[in-house]
């Protein structure tokens, strides 16, 4: 399957990845090869087969609506690159 550099750039932007021109070429080829491999599935007759969304045959895992202790502000913010008071601090977001 042919994947263009433009396709790679589009996906990279959605994923917030910065790629060098060399990487774009490299990944275009690699992604194309992976998708080409998956294409092979089209050769199979899948009529009557339900699309698989999950690999494990399991359903309905629930929890009851009962409050469990939270971990606390200190722990919640422990891994934050920046925090202030009880908030995570991020660059200014303007709408």
């Amino acid at each position: 399957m042919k994947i263009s550099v433009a396709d790679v750039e589009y996906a990279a932007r959605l994923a917030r990845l910065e790629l060098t021109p060399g990487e774009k070429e490299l990944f275009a080829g690699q992604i194309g090869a992976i998708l080409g491999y998956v294409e092979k599935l089209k050769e199979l007759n899948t009529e009557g087969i339900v699309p698989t969304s999950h690999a494990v045959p399991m359903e309905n895992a629930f929890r009851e609506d009962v409050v469990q202790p939270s971990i606390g502000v200190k722990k919640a913010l422990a891994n934050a690159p920046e925090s202030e008071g009880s908030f995570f601090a991020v660059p200014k977001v303007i709408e």
Partner: protein
Amino acid sequence: MRYQPVIGLEVHVQLLTDTKIFCGCSTKFGAEPNSQTCPVCLGLPGALPVLNKKVVEFAIKAGLSTNCSITPRSIFARKNYFYPDLPKGYQISQFEDPICQWGWLDIKIDGEESKRISITRIHMEEDAGKLVHGELSGQNDGSGVDLNRACTPLLEVVSEPDLRSSDEAVSYLKQLHQIVTWLGICDGNMEEGSFRCDANVSVMPVGSDTFGTRAEIKNVNSFKFVKQAIEYEIQRQIDLIEDGGTVVQETRLFDPNSGTTRSMRSKEEAHDYRYFPDPDLVPLVISEEWVERSRQELPELPEQRQQRFMAELGLPPYDAEVLTASRALADYFEAGVAAGGNAKTVGNWIMGEITRALNDSGTPIESCPVSPVQLAELLKLIDNGTISGKIAKTVFDEMWRSGKAPQSIVEEQGLVQVSDTGAIESIIDEIMAANAAQVEDYRGGKDKMFGFFVGQVMKASKGKANPSVVNELLLNKLKG
């Protein structure tokens, strides 16, 4: 050229569960920022979401109450995008196979026939966190992120583009709001964002069957603003087209201060959410038995209750509609009737005195200081002639203030109605003697003077004279 607006609404309904949709953190409003968080709602690596069963039960109830089909097998999907209030980099939502599909609501606008508005789908999803601006002190002029709200359960109710005016949109919204609050699955607080609406608005030439390009308006948090935002947007698009421009598909933000909408640049990028089934959450299978059980548990809905109030209690349609505005109001009314009140009279008092007092004091009907039983007792005192309807209002005010029973207020303040003809006659005699000129006028043909005499007698009796006795005696005496 004349234009036809086309409107579809997406409503987010925050569910009244105690915990979040995928973890056990509390959903209580107003806690210290980030104090109600855990690895799941913080999106920490390796944390696994587990679905809150109550969210499913609420969703089924919402679906059944809006005439939807419940999807036997539905799945959760990841909606991928980056934003600082979304810790995982994706929102867990439903894409294909949402829990409810193909419903409808009949809306009614004054003086028009009811109109059916289709509901495309209702799906479950998690809310994002909250961004605060300008609250960080010190050298940091950035934004703050509070993830207490992250992972709070929402239903998104999506209508078909069946609405044709701002009035229809508001009518639909009000009905949906009434249903979710009636079911007790949402507190309906629009200011706090528990019930919020995005409107998709486009215009097309009248008679066309091709929709125009739509703009999505966000951030509308009251019925009034929904009307304003939609009307502004319709006019903006018409003006744009008339001036030779084209409407672009975009997200616009409503500004309640100016009543206008403006483009949200930050969201201009093409939406490409790359939805895919969330492997962390197993499929949700809802059996017919489960649906049936939910159906049995549904309360009598507003529409049904209105019909019953008309059929069983003989209420006029207007009264039935007003008294079923909320479940609490309808319950109050029925409790008053059950306590022996006449349905029409109880209804009148609720729509009159009680509503006025509730509004004046900003009290919800749930905390009305006068109980329905007390109201019925008060009405009994009018019925059996103990007090007049006028005095009843004074007694009501005192009941509202002190919470005392009407009977004891009447006794304490000596408000018992005077029906004793002798006592009333002597008052009338005094009044007539003191107003001889007016008596002459009346006898000379000025019938209107009658009201003057009634007023004087009632005043002299401090409102306690029985009005019908007063009328009768006055008529006789004035004849001379």
